[in-house]
């Protein structure tokens, strides 16, 4: 899941189209069993940095 170089005409670094991702997935060996219960699968949600404080009283 590391960053990969972007295409020359892309905007950068991180993301690939879904089709490319699918091809990559298929080329990787598939683990028959993965011990998910032993992994840290915690999910930290990021609260929106939207604050009513940042609303001008005149905003519509």
């Amino acid at each position: 899941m590391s960053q990969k170089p972007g295409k020359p005409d892309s905007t950068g670094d991180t993301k690939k189209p879904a089709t490319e991702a699918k091809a990559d997935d298929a080329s990787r060996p598939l683990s028959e069993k993965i011990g998910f219960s032993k992994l840290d699968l915690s999910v930290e949600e990021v609260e929106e940095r939207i604050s009513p404080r940042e609303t001008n009283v005149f905003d519509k």
Partner: protein
Amino acid sequence: MISTTFPIDLVFPPQGHFTQPYLALPCIQAWLKAHGHDDVRLTDASVLAYDRFLSADYLARAARRVDESLPLERFRGLDELPFAEMEAYRAAVESAVAKDALIGSIDAAKAVLRGEDCFDPDRYAPAVRTLYHGLRLVSAAHFPSVLTPHNFTMAYANDRSAEVLAATLDRAANPFVAFYEEELLPALVARRPRLLGLSVIYGSQLIPALTLGRLVKAALPHCHVTAGGGFLAYIGKKLMAAPGLDACLDSVVFWEGEGPLLALADALKTGRSLGEVGSLTWFDRGERATRGGVRTVENAPAHPVRLDDAPVPDFEGLPFELYFSPETVLPYDVNRGCYYGECTFCTLPTVIGPGYRTRQADTIARQVVELRDRHGARHFNFITDCMPPGMIRDLPDALLAHEADITWWSDARVEPRAYTADGARRLYEAGCRKLLFGFETATPRLLKLMKKGQSARATLEVARNCAAADISVTFYAMVGFPSETKEEAGATLAFLLENADVVREVSLQTFHIDEVSEIYRDPSPFGLTMLDDPEADLQLYHDYVAEEGMTQEEAAVAFEEMMAGFRAHFPIFAGDNIYYFMQKSHYFLHLARGVTPDEFAARCRERAEHLEAVGGDGPWRAADGLATLELPFSYTATLKTLAHPLARAIRPDFLTGRYSEEASARARAALASLPRNPRLLAYAAGAAGASEVVELSPQAEPALSALADPRCDAAWLARQEPADRASLAAFAQRLARAGLLRAGERAVLTPHGAPSTASASPVPHS
């Protein structure tokens, strides 16, 4: 007098809200045309800028700029992330993980807000969020400047003229330099206006307005550049005394603009001296000039216009299709000034000019009908500090008599004699759907000190009458008024929460003192000592020391506590319903469609509860455009540090735009660096979940891959150990709640870890 040879341009500079047009320039355009100047052009540069910045190609350009100026690689080599680098790290991370998704979804998001989908909360909230995040990318490209739908700030202090003027020249951090050069200046140069008028209502417009003034003055030396508006009514005099300001402006118009702009245009056209133009302060660049070849001249005030004689505001030229609103909402001023005018904290009525003036109810109804027919607009925002009791009674009758068939909302003062049960019903019949009252506080002692002339009980009675008539009620409230204690702020919060079934929204502000207020002029009755900043030559707001009650810092803490209470108890503040509070016009349009405040609150409540429960309804498929990113430092820990009061203090105060001198040093000394902590960030633009971005352990990579891999189908899942299936299912459930996975037919997992009968779908990831 026909003036086809005297082109006039009126521009509303960024940054203002993007949901509806502003009123001042249409009023001035109508006045100028009514008095013979028919070559007037109106430009809302603020909404043009938002539309341009929030476009796929501009965001792609912004992303390339961030790649060059704030590459994430710069942080990968660090052993620790010091506080001084955290803002930059945050901007780099957010841009890197979201840019492609934002570029891909921004046009659709704008289309949602401009069309029928705006009324579907499941389409609306993700679309607004995409706009907010798009502006983060724009901001990162001009780091450390920050543009939001509600504000624009740079690293330059708004209350120091040298910094303001430097900001107008900073191409790297000021996004409006290039925007003007590319989008506005070519047409202006081709048109060669003789007079350019800039409307500066907010402090956030100051730097963008002067930036445009500088560019126009350089390109069109014969064009007179003037500026006016609410914010300049406060600081215009100081601004005109600032060294170097004459490179950006030729004059400032104070207070109401109609008369002065007309007199200025006539004087410029005929070559007369500007000395006779009322309410104008201008630079005399003639032979008598002294200071640097320029002499500042302050003219006498102009007479205000008789409002009933003012023509219908002329919105011609404004790009109605670009406002981020599914239906046009037109502003219209029913009166100017405040008939009450006693509140010790309020200086708003002073910026429009002397006295209180109103249109007749019949004039209002007639003009509103004309605007309705001219623009096909059924919705209005009546601009007023408050309507007197007589108008509250007369206006509904006039609107009904003229068969206006419109809906409207406006600010209001608590008038128990007018907002009776019958009066409120009559207002509803005449289209009133939302009123915003100055409640301020529940503490009688403070209301007296404020000279509000109202009691909390009377305010509540008025609110109940309006709510019973299905008019949505908003209260303006403030915290930190001189001598207010923490207990009193707590009592105000308790009062508001007790009445959350009547009061739908609370617009809360911390108390600030500006130089025009009675409190500033005579602080002793309030137990205050004013603090001046000799370096701030454009200072408008002042810090103070209070003999009793909360300090300014304590008031800021009380503000956060009150806001947390609102988020927890008011449906419109819960979860992403907050966007309806942030974009008030959008909430109003629901009311205008016949949704009652009770029904809307119930919908908001249901939506918040539904989002909390999302994840229980598998099977799932991946959100479109799911992207992941490896991080050297925790993003959530960075945000947590930046949310610390000491860290927040390094940004300019939202209301005043002021920087605190020692804030940076204090924050750097007190807030610890973050240790290296490899993390994984996942993001999906436009996700209808609670979060749309989550932070994971790198150990989660195999689980994400499994969810993405089409070979990990039902048969493969059945071969996993039960405990592993359960872990993967719980993981997917949490991602679904955040909006990164969506309920769908082709997913691999159900909530309990049982394989679904459908085959697996690819989950795009990197």
